[in-house]
């Protein structure tokens, strides 16, 4: 019998992980997602360097530029992303409690709010173009389109990731003992939050 050959300690089902006690070696999600996240951070560090250099060269364009943009669009996107991020935090917490149906509901709500970002962006760009703000309207707007559209691409990857883990959750692919994939999608999604929290003041607030 297999159970006679395997020591009792190895047969025991490992306890569901809890995070009330810090584990300072724990890697949330998996190692692969962190390679991707660090690549994204390096990529945006380069983009932000371009922003700083452009701002240093054209201070007047960066003083006037934000006045022409719709602050309400930037603020709405920020609130959508932060609230979507909140839903994803709740989804991970629900999975830790082995509540798959609750996890799925939070994930779907998070995706729904996340999809609001491209929708607001669509109307923002339409409004911009109607007011003569296209990619050739000046250096500020060139950098604005370059950074915000690049961020939007990363948000699409994040939404695809959330869609994948929502599907896996729906078919019972995760449990309180194995949800690394869900957590990987969550940390990537929150990374897009961190990047946007820098982009928002750069184009809508700072002069």
């Amino acid at each position, binding site marked *: 019998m297999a159970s006679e050959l395997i020591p009792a300690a190895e047969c025991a089902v490992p306890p569901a992980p809890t995070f009330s006690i810090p584990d300072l070696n724990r890697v949330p999600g998996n190692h692969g997602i962190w390679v991707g996240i660090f690549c994204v951070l390096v990529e945006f560090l380069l983009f932000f360097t371009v922003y700083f250099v452009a701002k*240093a060269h054209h201070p007047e364009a960066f003083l006037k530029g934000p006045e022409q943009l719709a602050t309400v669009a930037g603020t709405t996107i920020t609130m959508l992303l932060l609230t979507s991020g909140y839903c994803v935090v709740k989804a991970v917490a629900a999975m830790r409690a082995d509540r798959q149906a609750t996890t799925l509901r939070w994930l779907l709500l998070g995706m729904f709010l996340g999809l609001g970002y491209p929708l607001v962006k669509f109307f923002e760009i339409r409004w911009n173009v109607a007011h003569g703000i296209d990619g050739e309207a000046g250096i500020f707007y060139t950098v604005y389109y370059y950074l915000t559209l690049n961020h939007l691409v990363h948000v699409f990857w994040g939404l695809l990731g959330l869609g994948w883990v929502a599907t896996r959750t729906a078919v019972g692919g995760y449990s309180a003992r194995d949800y690394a994939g869900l957590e990987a999608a969550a940390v990537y999604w929150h990374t897009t*939050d961190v990047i946007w929290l820098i982009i928002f003041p750069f184009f809508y*607030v700072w002069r």
Partner: protein
Amino acid sequence: MKLGHTEKIWLILIGLTLSSAFLAETGQRSWSLSLIVAAMIAFKGRLVIDHYMEMRNANRRIRRVLHAFVTVIPLMVVITHAFGPQIARLTAL
């Protein structure tokens, strides 16, 4: 109704975002605006990293890299405000 930890973090983030939107309407270049923008990026970034990503209870090295990211960018905000013309001279082709 008692708010949970995640709800409190979300409320702080939303409150700071709405404050930023109010600041956006000032339309003035000033040291105070640059310092507020730098502080907002550093503080909001840390809130997301530590509480949304749960890094305060996870791998120290990864957390340090993420914190470095939301420290370097605010520093660059301050440096660009203080030394804009010098940066322009140094980076002129």
